[in-house]
Structures are given as structure tokens and as C-alpha cells.
């Protein structure tokens, strides 16, 4: 019986058996799902190790610096699999997001050799890369001897792979000529509407079609349903306020952060399109946003949706995904692709990509790459997407996977459709430049002043653009 079971799983790992036949075969042998998962994992470990020398760095140690996140949980849950397969020793530190990037900045700027691989956002690499703190991963990606046959770089969603690569020249496009691959995409989120289906049904409303429609519907929901507010978006004095809904909407209205004129940056956050959109954005929050909006981070936005305190959010799709399971409103969350501009049909969501980067000060770079290609590899990404919450996956093969699709359709109805409608227009819409955090933090502070009516929108954006231009000039990246 044991032999039969082992051979069944070995056939699957070798590709001689499809997933459906494996499940059928396992059921016939009376193997439960938990046991099947363990056996499959074990056989895959052996199969992967057999195809390529995963033991090349046996005995080596690497250390990871990680942010507390469902993606991290998914990876750590399967880390023993990697350790067993490679014989490597992997240790890690996990920090909450509030202090995570401080820790990364401190470790890298002090040229610490303590960490080999760490989690990063794509935006952060614009600061860390030009400073010389990151390894250009192209040297590993394009070295066939360094890659397992399983690591198919073409499987990464092209926009995401390009978003993690940049030449370091302010204003040059991501993934353009001479771009260095500062990190590997690991999991990502695009911005759309997640809404409470029960509340929308109660108010007899359909999900909003565009921003003016959203304002009307959010107000109506707030009026019709006692004790809730209409729309949740981030508002804290942080760069993180700008990148989700705000930038996605701004792009839909034809706005942008900068214009690139003769290779130099020119602040464009006060363009007529930006002013038109920002007025609507501020109006939306004033009329139907949370009352203490200026304190709202992703945490409050997500929790309010899950707790039934808000009717909808315009934020990361995965924020709605996480609330669909394990919150008070579990099962009530709907997902909806969203184009803010009534004249545009296709959504243009900005994306946030959690990525894995390698420290330039790592003493174990080849071993670190071994880990990196496993963590961002198809097997681990599939494990994360189907057994944990490593969603949205960064590989096309995972989106095509039937198990993953079935999981989404069964527990997260509408999520896949939302993704399919949003994905084609999704990418990083910020102009890459190393002052990203200064300028977006200032942008968030300006929005708070407009919201509090300390300054009119037009004047607030003009002053912001002036300050931004002056900072760029000081840094030598604008005229």
C-alpha cells in the first residue's frame, strides 16, 4: 500500500499523472487530504532535488529579513521543505510593517552582513538600488548554471518583472534599457473596489461604475444604512496613502506624478487632470469617507470592511480577499474592477509588489539566489496561492492553475473576474526616481490639508508641485 502510494505521487511529480488522476488515485488508496499533502510535498522535494543539484550549498547558512505578512506566513509554513531539499540552514527575523523598512534601511545603510535576502517593495528598490545596497539579479537570472530547470523566468507576469527593474536614471521607464533587476516579484496587489454585497443589496445598488457614481452611491449607502460610512481609502500622512486608490484614479483621469521633459523631471501633480480628479477624491472622502480619515492606513481600511463599518473600499484587491475569510463580514465581500474616469472603460490600477531582494553585503550570494529562486519559484508560489494566502500570484502558471481558480471561485466569487478585468491595465504608474518617499509623503500631507479645508485643492496642488520641483532641483534631477 505504501509502495503504491509512493509510486502514485512520484508519477505525479514526474508529470506522468494529472492532478485530477492523482486525487482520484489517492482517494482509492484511502489517503486523506492532509496525508496526501505531506506525501506530495515529500515526493516533490525528492523530484526537484533529483533534477538539479539543490544540495550544491549544503551546510551554508543564510538569514532573511521579513515583514509580517500573509506572504511571509506562506513561505515560512513551507520553509522546512526548502531546508530539507537543500541542506541549507535558513534563519529569519520578522518585523511588523510599522518598523520593517526602518530595519531594512538601517541594515543596508550600515553595510551589515547580517541579512542575505529581504522583502522589499518595488518603490523601495529605487532608493536602495542606486545607493549600491542591492545585487543586480540579472547576473543570476541569465546564468543557466545558477538556475534550476524549474525556475522559468518567463513565467513571471512581464509587467511585474519589469517593475522590479530600473536603470537608476530618474524618469527612465521601469524595465527599460540598461535596467538592473533589483528584486524578484513575490506577491502583488492591484487596486480595485471590494464591497459589502449585503449592504449594496439592502440599498438596492450595483457596484459603482466610476468616481462620480461612487460618490453618489457611497453617500446613499451611508444614509440608508445606520452606523456605517460609504467608502474606505487610506489617508495617513504617509507615502502609502498615494499608491493605492489615489494614484489609480489619477491615472484614469489622465494625470501623473511627473512629466519627463528632455530627460528631466517636471512635477505634474498640479495638472488640470490632477486638479479635476483630486477635487472629486477629496469630495468623496469629505462626503462619505471615515471621519478620522487622516489616521487611516491599510489596516484600518481593511478592518472596517471586514467589521461591517464601511460599505466598500477602493484599495488593494487582496485587502478585500483577506477580509473575505475570517472577518465578521466573511462571505459578504464582493470584488469589482474599477475605472475612476467615466470616459474610460478599462481600469488602470497602480500595483504594489512585495518582492525579494538580495543584499549587496551578503556573504553568501549564490546560496541566497538558491533560496530566492525557490521562494519565487512556481512550486512555492503554487503552494502559497492554493494552501495559504500568497495572493495575487506573480506567475502566469499559477493564474492558469485549475486548483487555484477553483479555490478562488469557490470562496472568493468575483475575484478572478475582477483580476482579469484589472490586470491588463495594471502596472506601477509612478515615475521611478530616488526621492519617491519624500515626494509621496509630502503629497499625502497636502491631501490632508485639502481634506481639512486648510487649503483649496488647486492651491494645495500648486504649492505641492512647487515644493516637489524644488526638492528635485536640490537633488540635481530637475531643472
Amino acid at each position, binding site marked *: 500500500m505504501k509502495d503504491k502510494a509512493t509510486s502514485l505521487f512520484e508519477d505525479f511529480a514526474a508529470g506522468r499523472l494529472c492532478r485530477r488522476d492523482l486525487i482520484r488515485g489517492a482517494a482509492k488508496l484511502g489517503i486523506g487530504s492532509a496525508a496526501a499533502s505531506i506525501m506530495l510535498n515529500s515526493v516533490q522535494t525528492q523530484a526537484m532535488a533529483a533534477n538539479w543539484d539543490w544540495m550544491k550549498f549544503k551546510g551554508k547558512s543564510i538569514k532573511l529579513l521579513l515583514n509580517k505578512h500573509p506572504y511571509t506566513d506562506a513561505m515560512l509554513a513551507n520553509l522546512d521543505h526548502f531546508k530539507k531539499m537543500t541542506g541549507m540552514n535558513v534563519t529569519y527575523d520578522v518585523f511588523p510593517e510599522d518598523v520593517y*523598512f*526602518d530595519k531594512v*534601511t*538601517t541594515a543596508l*545603510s550600515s553595510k551589515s552582513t547580517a541579512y542575505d535576502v529581504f522583502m522589499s517593495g518595488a518603490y523601495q528598490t529605487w*532608493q536602495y538600488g*542606486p*545607493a*549600491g545596497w542591492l545585487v543586480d539579479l540579472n547576473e543570476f537570472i541569465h546564468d543557466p548554471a545558477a538556475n534550476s530547470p524549474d525556475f522559468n523566468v518567463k513565467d513571471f507576469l512581464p509587467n511585474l518583472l519589469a517593475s522590479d527593474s530600473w536603470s537608476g536614471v530618474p524618469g527612465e521607464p521601469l524595465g527599460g534599457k540598461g535596467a538592473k533587476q533589483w528584486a524578484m516579484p513575490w506577491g502583488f496587489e492591484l487596486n480595485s473596489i471590494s464591497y459589502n454585497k449585503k449592504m449594496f443589496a439592502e440599498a438596492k445598488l450595483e457596484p459603482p461604475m466610476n468616481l462620480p457614481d461612487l460618490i453618489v452611491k457611497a453617500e446613499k449607502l451611508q444614509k440608508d444604512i445606520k*452606523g456605517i*460610512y460609504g467608502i474606505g481609502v487610506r489617508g*495617513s*500622512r*504617509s*507615502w502609502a496613502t498615494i499608491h493605492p486608490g489615489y494614484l489609480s484614479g489619477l491615472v484614469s483621469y489622465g494625470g501623473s506624478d511627473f512629466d519627463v521633459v528632455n530627460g528631466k523631471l517636471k512635477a505634474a501633480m498640479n495638472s488640470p487632470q490632477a486638479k479635476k480628479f483630486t477635487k472629486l477624491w477629496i469630495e468623496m472622502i469629505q462626503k462619505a469617507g*471615515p*471621519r*478620522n*480619515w*487622516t*489616521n487611516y492606513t491599510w489596516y484600518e481600511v481593511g478592518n*472596517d470592511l471586514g467589521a461591517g*463599518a464601511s460599505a466598500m473600499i477602493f484599495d488593494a484587491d487582496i485587502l478585500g480577499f483577506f477580509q473575505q475569510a475570517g472577518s465578521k463580514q466573511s462571505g459578504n465581500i464582493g470584488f469589482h474592477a474599477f475605472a475612476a474616469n467615466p470616459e474610460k472603460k478599462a481600469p488602470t490600477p497602480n500595483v504594489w509588489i512585495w518582492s525579494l531582494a538580495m543584499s549587496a553585503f551578503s556573504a553568501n550570494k549564490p546560496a541566497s539566489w538558491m533560496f530566492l529562486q525557490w521562494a519565487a519559484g512556481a512550486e512555492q508560489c503554487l503552494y502559497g496561492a492554493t494552501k495559504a494566502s500568497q495572493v495575487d500570484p506573480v506567475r502566469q502558471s499559477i493564474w492558469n492553475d485549475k486548483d487555484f481558480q477553483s479555490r478562488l471561485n469557490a470562496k472568493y466569487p468575483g475575484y478572478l473576474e475582477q483580476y482579469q478585468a484589472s490586470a491588463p491595465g495594471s502596472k506601477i504608474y509612478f515615475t521611478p526616481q*530616488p*526621492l519617491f*518617499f*519624500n515626494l509621496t*509623503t509630502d503629497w499625502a*500631507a*497636502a491631501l*490632508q*490639508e485639502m*481634506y*481639512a479645508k*486648510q487649503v483649496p485643492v488647486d492651491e494645495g496642488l500648486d504649492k505641492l508641485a512647487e515644493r516637489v520641483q524644488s526638492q528635485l532641483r536640490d*537633488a*540635481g534631477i530637475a531643472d
Partner: protein
Amino acid sequence: MPNPAAATMAVSHAKRRSGARMARILPYLLSLPALLTCIGILVPFFSAVYYALQRYNLAFPAGRKFIWLDNFVQLFLSGEFWHTITISLLYTALTVGLEMLLGLAIALLLWRRSFVTNLLSVALILPLMVAPEIASLMWKLMTNANFGILSYFVSVIGIHDFRWASAPQSALFTVVLVDMWVYTPFISILLLAGLRGLPRQPFEAAELDGVPTSFVFFRIMLPMLLPYMLTAGLFRMLDSIQQFDIIYAMTQGGPGNTLMVFQIQAYLQAFTFTNIGRASAILVVLWAITFALSKVFMKNWLRLRERAHGLA
């Protein structure tokens, strides 16, 4: 045959020599901890001054160079920095002043020993055992406009839609309130210790002479308590002007730039914008202000102490 007297003398000489050597080294050994502490304090301080004179952004390693006072000039030319100075001083004045008043009132209430006051004195320490960041998160929940209990209480008394730390008009009030909750017990405890340590004779004499309570308070108790108040005030002043955790946890320096105090400004420059030069310049200005204020406090404290000892 060895001469026992000579041997004894030699031992005695050796002991004396080693004693003399020890006596020479001892002062240096005794001052070594102080010297090490000084180095530990001065190295980071002079590093900050050194960085403050440079254009030093970690994201632009090639652009690092000496710009001498340019960081300071840029700061003082910026309206935002003057706002930072104003709001930091205002926050300090409000927290120290209000905490001193409330702390004194609480200390007076707990002055006379009884079972209840002893119990309350212990309970008073509780807020001090909560990390300010945790206290701020607790207050953030209590002041949440949608479900916070304090928002509910103010709505009961007719103040609807009070936005606490998320509105520029009430943000300073809110963070001062949290600071008071956390730190007033510290002042109360210090002043209570001072009150209980005061000599009883002047009060007994005043009671026998039928001196009015207000006279006793303003002319006897307060002057004797003043050194304690200055000590408590100095500690709180140093802490308040460098306030970070409460304000950052509740507002991140916002809304807008409303609560952009020194430490938050420096923190953002250093950790978020990687501009070490600018962050160091901000901290050097903060040090200068703190140093000046401390000098004033110390001068007054020494004067009062001398007066208390009958030297002035």
C-alpha cells in the same frame, strides 16, 4: 644565611612601591567609567555635527560632500521648520505646564497618609507602566470617531463629529491629553515624595498661628517644593521637546504638518528619506534648544537649592 630583617624591609618597600603606584593610578581608574560614558555620549554627538555639515543622502552616495552650514540655512529659510520649532515649544509648554498643575493637585490630595491614599499612590503608577506607544494606540481606539468610547461621551454632551487627532484644530489638544495621561503620574509621584519630605515645623507653626491656608500654600509650601517642581519640570521638558512616540503613533506628524515636531521631522528625514545630513542638522538645532532650556532650569534649580540651604 638570609637576613630576616632585610627581607622584611624589602617586602615592606615593595608593598609601599605598589601602594604608591596604585595611588597614582587610582584616580584614573575611578574616572574611567565617567570617561567611557563621556566618549559614548560625545562620539554620536560629534558624528551628528559632522553629518550636519554635509550633503549626505544615503540614496545619493556620489553626492556626499561638505556643504558647511547649508543644511542649517535651508532649515531656517523654510517656513515649515519654523512651524516645527513653534509646535515643539508649544507642545512642551502645554504638557509641562498642565502636567505640573495637575500633578501638584494630585500630590496634594494624596499628601496625608491613609489606606485610600496609599492605595491610590500605587494605582497612580499604572499609566507609567504602559509604553507610550501602546497608550497612544489605546487612545487612538478610544477617540475613533466611529466607535471610540470618548467620541461617544462627547456626543452625549452635545459635541457631535469631534475628530480628535484627525482634525488640525483638535490634534494638539488630543496628543497633549494623551501625554498628560501617561506622564502626570510621574510628576505627582515626584512631588508627593517632595511633599512628604518637607519639614513639619513650619506647617505646625502656621497652624498654631492660624495662618490662612492660601498663605501656607503660596508662602511656605510652594517655595519649599519649588526645587522638586523644577526637577520634575526639567525631566518632563527634556522629554516633551523630544516627543516622538505619542505623536507619531497618533498622527505621524499630521494632519498636514500640524504636529510635525522635531523628532518626527528628523525621523522622516533619516529613515524614510535617507537624508542623514538634514536629519542631523535638525537634531543639532534640537540639541541647542534643549541645552539652552536646561541651562535656564539648572540655573534656577541651583539658586533655589542654595536658598533652601540658607546660602543665598
